[in-house]
């Protein structure tokens, strides 16, 4: 099951060139870029593991690509996303986020319905492999 989170997730996977172009766009607008990874792509799991600190004073996409390659090598079977932070409001707010790496076999999300309190229904989602 293809996990869809952030930008471009309904498109085919981005190639490295396309990722570089997106990073250049972000850097051109003065955004800082962070690399994050997780093995648990639950939609409520917003805090992924940080791969180093966000990179603040880069000028070229190559710097991010180096970190991304290092992260891919270290975590080949996980999700990796790039996050762009915009500081124009005085705080580093996430302004763009997209998945750049997926495990070979993606996790599935299973929904369970529970009937409670008469006919009311509770929904729960969990990640299954």
């Amino acid at each position, binding site marked *: 099951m293809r996990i869809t989170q952030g930008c471009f997730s309904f498109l085919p996977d981005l190639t490295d060139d396309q990722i570089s172009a997106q990073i250049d766009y972000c850097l051109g607008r003065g955004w800082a870029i962070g690399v994050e990874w997780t093995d648990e792509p639950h939609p409520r799991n917003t805090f992924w593991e940080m791969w180093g600190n966000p990179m603040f*004073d*880069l*000028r*070229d996409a*190559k*710097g991010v690509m180096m*970190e991304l390659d290092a992260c891919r090598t270290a975590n080949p079977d996980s999700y990796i996303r790039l996050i762009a932070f915009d500081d124009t409001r005085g705080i580093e707010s996430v302004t763009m986020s997209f998945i750049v790496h997926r495990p070979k076999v993606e996790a599935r999300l299973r929904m369970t319905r529970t009937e409670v309190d008469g006919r009311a229904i509770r929904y729960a989602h969990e990640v299954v492999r």
Partner: protein
Amino acid sequence: MEDAVEARPETVDLQAEYQASGLAEVLEELDRELIGLAPVKARIRETAALLLVEKARRMMGLAQEAPTLHMSFTGNPGTGKTTVALKMAGILKRLGYVRKGHLVSVTRDDLVGQYIGHTAPKTREVLKRAMGGVLFIDEAYYLYRPDNERDYGQEAIEILLQVMENNRDDLVVILAGYADRMDTFFNANPGFRSRIAHHIEFPDYTDDELLRIVEHILGGQNYTLSAGARTAMADYIRLRRAQPHFANARSIRNALDRARLRQANRLFETATGALDARALSLIDESDIRASRVFQGGLAHERAPSAGDPA
């Protein structure tokens, strides 16, 4: 796929390429703003010509390998190494050899860490910042400390060498420092010597050139020298050169800053009425003659013959 079938041009007009790249602008700027340094300018022109031809060859499919562009700038302090590096970044950008054309200027402190495991991330951080531009390592020989074999500088050197080899398309490294110590550095690290294609030497400025630099700096700041001050400045340059810690243009720039200070002080103390623009921008002979250089330098550095008992 599309690149492969795209028709290659049969001829290349180097002049047109030269104009289109905007290279002429940078080279003219180099001539206009940098006084003296004739051998450096000649080398830069040669390098630029080589890169232009290389670019043309690439367009016609004759060259595959990107040329090695790492350089070393050797010369005494204040001979314009950093300034030229900045221009070099502009030249490389216009020729399309670096993507962004910014200059990241670092010294040993920015590359080498304090404890085990600190150096590699620090060096990588700097390299990431320099990607797409030029990495300028000032006083590069401090990276290598032969007296301490466990010095972390060696680790930085290894990472640098690796990146200089593998990321040749992504960044250009310029090492700078004094000529003799750079020689020792290259002898101790043969890997660097073989990875650096262009060794450019920066000669010391002559007295005439320094005087022209004075006028150039003052012109940029809207100051003028009186005729007496000009002679005093020529004397100053001659005397300063013989004294310790002479740093070419940098010494001169500092001397001018102090002369402006004295000029302001003089105006403040002597002026009684309204001052016009000319008075505010004129540096007088007394402003320069008051320098300690005319008494033989700093008190503790003076030669004993200068008649100072202390």
